[in-house]
């Protein structure tokens, strides 16, 4: 019986990304040896996530109520919206501490070859927000790859009739990197986006 329970947990854990059978086995025995309240809290957190998680009605971030914490925060700059592809991208921008506005999650990026069209993303909702909420700036923080670029250009066109500044996050070399290993496109973009030293 005990073996069945452990085996079942290992089986479930191997469904997680990056977790193979050995890692799953290690995690399963770690959970077995955890304090009861910690293990139950972990199980409870997973259950609560699956039962309560939904999309924010305004920005499509993940939340457990109608609107997310960020949209409810009155200290946020409501004139700026940062557009990201996935809710997980918000965490990265938030960790940077460089943005204090609101967000808009597109839930993907345009990809003609995969049949992903604007109608499948939350672009219309973004246009509605810009139209209704008096937004001054839309910062497009889609991924710096072809899909992200196509999406950024499409959003710029969709917002063309509004009096709003559409900006794009900068391109270039990562901090701690070495120019020697940069490819020509990244290097070209870095040179195009160079700034005056103050």
């Amino acid at each position, binding site marked *: 019986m005990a073996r069945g329970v452990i085996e079942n947990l290992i089986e479930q854990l191997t469904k997680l990304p990056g977790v193979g059978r050995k890692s799953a086995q290690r995690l399963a025995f770690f959970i077995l040896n955890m304090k009861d309240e910690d293990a139950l809290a972990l199980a409870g957190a997973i259950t609560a996530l699956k039962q309560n998680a939904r999309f924010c009605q305004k920005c499509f971030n993940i939340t457990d109520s109608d609107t997310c914490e960020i949209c409810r925060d009155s200290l946020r700059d409501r004139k700026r919206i940062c557009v990201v592809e996935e809710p997980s991208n918000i965490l990265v921008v938030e960790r940077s501490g460089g943005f204090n506005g609101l967000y808009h999650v597109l839930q993907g990026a345009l990809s*003609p070859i995969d049949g992903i069209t604007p109608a499948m993303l939350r672009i219309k909702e973004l246009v509605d927000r810009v139209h209704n909420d008096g937004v001054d700036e839309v910062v497009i923080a889609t991924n710096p790859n072809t899909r992200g670029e196509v999406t950024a250009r499409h959003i710029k066109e969709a917002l063309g009739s509004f009096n709003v500044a559409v900006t794009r996050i900068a391109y270039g070399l990562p901090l701690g990197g070495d120019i020697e290993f940069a490819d020509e496109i990244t290097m070209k973009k870095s040179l195009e986006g160079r700034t005056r030293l103050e």
Partner: protein
Amino acid sequence: MTGRTEGIVLRSRTLGEADLIIEYLTKDFGTRSAFAKSPRKIKSRFGGSLEPFTHARIALTGKEDANLPRLTQSDIIRSFHPLRENTPGFIKACQFAELVMKLLPSEGRSHNAFALMLWGLDGLEKDPASVLVPLVFKLRLLELAGYAPALNGCTRCGGQTDVFYPRDGALLCGGCKKEGPALGLSAALIALHKSLSVFPLEKLSRIKPSGALLTELERFVELHFSEGVNVHIRSVKF
């Protein structure tokens, strides 16, 4: 399989957190998928070399019978970056990639298809609005894949006719005709089709068909793809 070759990125799919499966049209091994470890990480050594339509010198390693060799090196020969920055041109290039993946076999030497793809991408980069380049690309690819429409008289009896039956991919005369949709082709279109199919690619810019003839050819090619080859393209304008 292990080897070095030149490849053009047709498409990439995410695998796990930061890995990618890249689909290439290679110069020597047909269309091939390869596994790239962690290219989505900011400091990846692959940089922008795995973006769609990049022409690169690549190295693949893996067992001889491995379906998914590992990409160990990718050095850009030509990025085709301006093409990716032009939405109409980009969508046409996506159609090229989609057709290559759907029509070409995944093994064997592919020098002609590779040269055609490079020619098509170059043409679109120079003129993203070009109507002729996508048409020639499609006609030549059909030829390479063995799906070229037969426009030299009735395919059955050899008689004179200009009625095209898309489901047969051929012209059929009144005596040999079948049920199904048919399209009457002008003599000018049949002549243009022949020229575009045989003229050397580097001299194709000398052919200057009228807008009306190009529209007719476009309609014919689309019909042949949808009814005869039964390939539907997902990369459409938006």
